[in-house]
């Protein structure tokens, strides 16, 4: 008979009920998995976009960079050397660590303003006039973080002073002993220096010292050096 009550509804109805009012466990599970998937997708997209704006091609897509700093970088030791290892724009100018990298990337929006709206270094003359200011920014950044950009590749501890020119070896030993940082001597290694650059650099250092912004020199780890000497001898 048709009027017999069936407690079990049809297949489609059951599926519809499941979709429309699912049990809490399934809702949560779907939310988690879909959320996880989208998270990966968005993070990947963000990272890809970040890396696309973090290479030499992108940097030199504006004439200000291509015709001034990039032109000067040609033939410098980080572009042309015996081993062919290169350091490109972001290797020195964008920190590798996540936090400082984000801060630098946000600061870089000011460069977009300079390019699209104010045109602050639009011509060669404008750039030359502002070079000392721009250089000071970079010196300050280097001095504040103990030349971290250099130290991503160069380490005083692993330098073989016996393979260096005498004066280089002497000065690197002095830097190690006195806790100096790379930028103290190596200004203008990739780009041209402006008038009175050394006075300007010393001014930056004095100001930072007065602010107490210079990181204290790390004490030499004698035990590590001893250990190293024992393994090599």
């Amino acid at each position, binding site marked *: 008979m048709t009027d017999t009550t069936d407690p079990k509804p049809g297949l489609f109805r059951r599926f519809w009920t499941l979709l429309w009012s699912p049990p809490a466990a399934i809702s949560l599970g779907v939310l988690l998995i879909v959320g996880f998937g989208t998270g990966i997708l968005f993070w990947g997209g963000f990272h890809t976009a970040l890396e696309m704006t973090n290479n030499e091609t992108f940097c030199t897509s504006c004439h200000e960079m291509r015709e001034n700093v990039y032109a000067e970088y040609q033939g410098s030791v980080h572009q042309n050397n015996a081993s062919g290892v290169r350091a490109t724009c972001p290797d020195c100018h964008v920190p590798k660590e996540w936090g400082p990298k984000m801060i630098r990337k946000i600061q870089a929006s000011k460069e977009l303003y300079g390019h699209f709206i104010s045109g602050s270094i639009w011509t060669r003359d404008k750039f030359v006039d502002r070079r000392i200011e721009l250089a000071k920014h970079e010196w300050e950044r280097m001095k504040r973080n103990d030349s971290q950009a250099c130290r991503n590749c160069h380490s005083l501890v692993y330098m073989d002073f016996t393979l260096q020119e005498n*004066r280089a070896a*002497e000065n690197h030993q002095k830097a190690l002993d006195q806790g100096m940082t790379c930028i103290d001597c190596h200004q203008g290694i990739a780009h041209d*220096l402006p008038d009175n*650059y050394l006075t300007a650099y010393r001014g930056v250092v004095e100001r930072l010292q007065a602010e107490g912004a210079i990181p204290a020199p790390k004490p030499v780890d004698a035990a590590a050096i001893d250990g190293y000497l024992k393994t090599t001898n």
Partner: protein
Amino acid sequence: MKKAILISALLAAATASLAGFAAAQSTLATAPETATVNSIRGVDPETQVTVNPVYHQEEGRKNRNYRAQPPIIPHTIEKYQIDLHANECLACHDWKNAADRRAPTLSMTHYTSRDGVQTDTVAPRRWFCNQCHVPQVDAPALVDNLFKGSEE
């Protein structure tokens, strides 16, 4: 009939021109003109060209050959900027920095302007160090030189 004559005439003309072309080709092949192309290298391509040897920097200060000789430089200066804006030599050799950097100070003559005025900064006419001072390398002399030093 007319059509057949036309076709055979065209064929004959084609054969004749082909034969003429072939003949022209063969004469070219037997008597080539001598090529007069100069090699960019300036020498016969078959000649072995030796690459100029690289001479390296000599370290250690050298004595002067005569009293007023500008001392030669015992280190590389290749990457140092000396131009209208900056002179990286002065970062060590200027009298203000020499002791800190343990470098020889410029001679005091370099602080005297052409009018004989003594200044604290290097005289403009002495700005371009490598007009007189050059790095020393173990290279043979480029030109023969009969000069004898004052001690010789």
